[in-house]
């Protein structure tokens, strides 16, 4: 395809090559954030352990399952469009977006709980990391939803087919990245002691 970034002679990952550059850059941002968290925790283990217990691990576990499910739905959407089933693809995309919306609701409730207790970025180092890391990820879920929404709209308009569905794969790749980051964030911030 002429409008896709390609490197000649190299097997391409699914979706648009540009999204992979973006995904790598995003993962680098999160990696540095996680590394900063880990290194700070090393010198404040007790503080981190104490305040980690204040977090709602059930809500976070629920959100983990929600995101994994949404990723599964996105996989189904890609396989549906690969078989030329645009209507089925649209339904799976909407289902994935529904799951993303559920994640937003659960996470918002968590944030509301902490804000009601007066927790903010200055409360302590642990909360500084917890709030900024999870909020940064939260914004990525919203961006992912916007991308899925745009692709769902184009699917409905009949832009994709079995032969041409790079857009769906591109959105799927980004959504999996959002999911992947949470799969690291959840054990790191909520569980690991």
């Amino acid at each position: 395809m002429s409008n896709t970034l390609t490197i000649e002679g190299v097997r391409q990952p699914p979706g648009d090559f540009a999204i992979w550059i973006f995904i790598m850059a995003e993962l680098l941002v999160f990696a540095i954030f996680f590394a900063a968290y880990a290194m700070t925790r090393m010198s404040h283990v007790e503080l981190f352990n104490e305040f980690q217990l204040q977090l709602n691990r059930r809500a976070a576990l629920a959100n983990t399952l929600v995101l994994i499910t949404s990723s599964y739905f996105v996989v189904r959407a890609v396989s549906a469009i690969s078989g030329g089933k645009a209507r089925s693809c649209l339904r799976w995309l909407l289902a994935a977006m529904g799951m993303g919306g559920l994640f937003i609701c659960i996470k918002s409730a968590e944030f509301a709980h902490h804000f009601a207790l007066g927790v903010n970025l200055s409360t302590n180092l642990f909360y500084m990391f917890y709030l900024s890391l999870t909020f940064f990820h939260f914004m990525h879920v919203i961006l992912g939803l916007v991308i899925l929404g745009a692709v769902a709209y184009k699917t409905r308009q009949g832009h994709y087919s079995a032969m041409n569905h790079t857009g769906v794969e591109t959105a799927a790749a980004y959504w999996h990245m959002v999911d992947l980051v949470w799969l690291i964030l959840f054990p790191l911030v909520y569980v690991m002691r």
Partner: protein
Amino acid sequence: MKYQSQAVAKPYFVAAIVLFVAQITFGLIIGLQYVIGDFLFPEIPFNVARMVHTNTLIVWLLFGFMGAAYYLVPEESETELHSPWLAKLMFWVFLVAAGLTVAGYLLVPYSGLAKLTGNSLLPTMGREFLEQPTITKLGIVVVALAFLFNIGMTVLKGRKTVVNLVLLLGLVGLAVFFLFSFYNPTNVVLDKYFWWWTVHLWVEGVWELILGSILAFVLIKVTGVDREVIEKWLYVIIAMTLITGIIGTGHHFYWIGTPEYWQWLGSIFSALEPIPFFMMAVFAFNMVNKRRRNHPNRVATLWALGTAVMAFLGAGVWGFLHTLAPVNYYTHGTQITAAHGHMAFFGAYVMINLTMISYAMPLLRGRTLANSSRQQTLETWAFWLMTISIVLITLFLTGAGILQTYMQRVSVTPQPFMAVQEQISLFYWLREYTGLVFLLGLTLYIASFFVGRKDPEPAVAN
């Protein structure tokens, strides 16, 4: 030149270059005042000359951006500019305002200028880089609004391209964040805090969008690579710019009385600000390697590649050098900052303007594709002389900064500021000599507009 109205860009580019000369002249004056403190005192004291150096820089870059937009938007939109006469009128308003302001700086003591321009009615003066009298600031707002209206209407009635939309987004951001220069809280912490919303969010935020779109435009023209490919790069670059640059503002909030978490957020996000610049460098070289034609304007391509490399070095690498809070604790406000400032401004914003001028000016002056070989050779010399001298100036100031940081702040027997300044004066002399080489480069640059003007255009290679 495809559209008649693109011609309004020409006076903007000419004014930009004239102010560029003023900026460099005053740069040489303050460079000399670093080592000969009473040079030109009391006629032009250091603080005034520095104000002229930085303000003319900002204003000429704005002239350049506006000229670039007036040239680029009609061509991208495939339609004439909405109102060429408004663009011409605003040019004169902006030029007169800039001229009067500089004259005010030089002829009247700053406090007198404040009184003369009625600063007490709406106090906005007295802050670094935003020293302009309130009335000048209002003039800038009027010019910016008229400019945005003109550009916006052109984009609306014509073809909407990614280059156009990113440029427009950058220009709207430029106007919006300038409004913070009118907000002048009494609390010194808040004052500094919001001051950065103009200063940082301009140069490490919306200006990068302007830079990206102009670079994309020139690369489309000189390489002939598919617009879709270039647009995708542009998307990825601006997304990374905004993700890292907005929260990256935090690297200015380390020691001004803001909460401690800014040391974390500022360090993490600003450490990643080199990424979009790195992408830009990869992008530019990639596009030139994939070129589908050899454009006869070789020097414009050279400027475009130079922009990408120097922006990455100056803004990216030299920014990263002192952006982490534990490092900045020692280096804050030393010559390291000056080193970064010089290479970042030159590499990113001076060079992108010169790239655009290099591409557009020959066409605005009646050439069909490019200047003559003799003109391009001169301009290439100018490119290398200016670029190499900025690299050297940056290295000398970095050397000065490292010594300053050590002697003044790290050593077991710290010395006072002025004592240290005297000991590092060798670096300031070297910087001043290199500044003269820069001036030579600038002279050749201006000569390239006139010498060989009548020669024929180089033959098209393919």
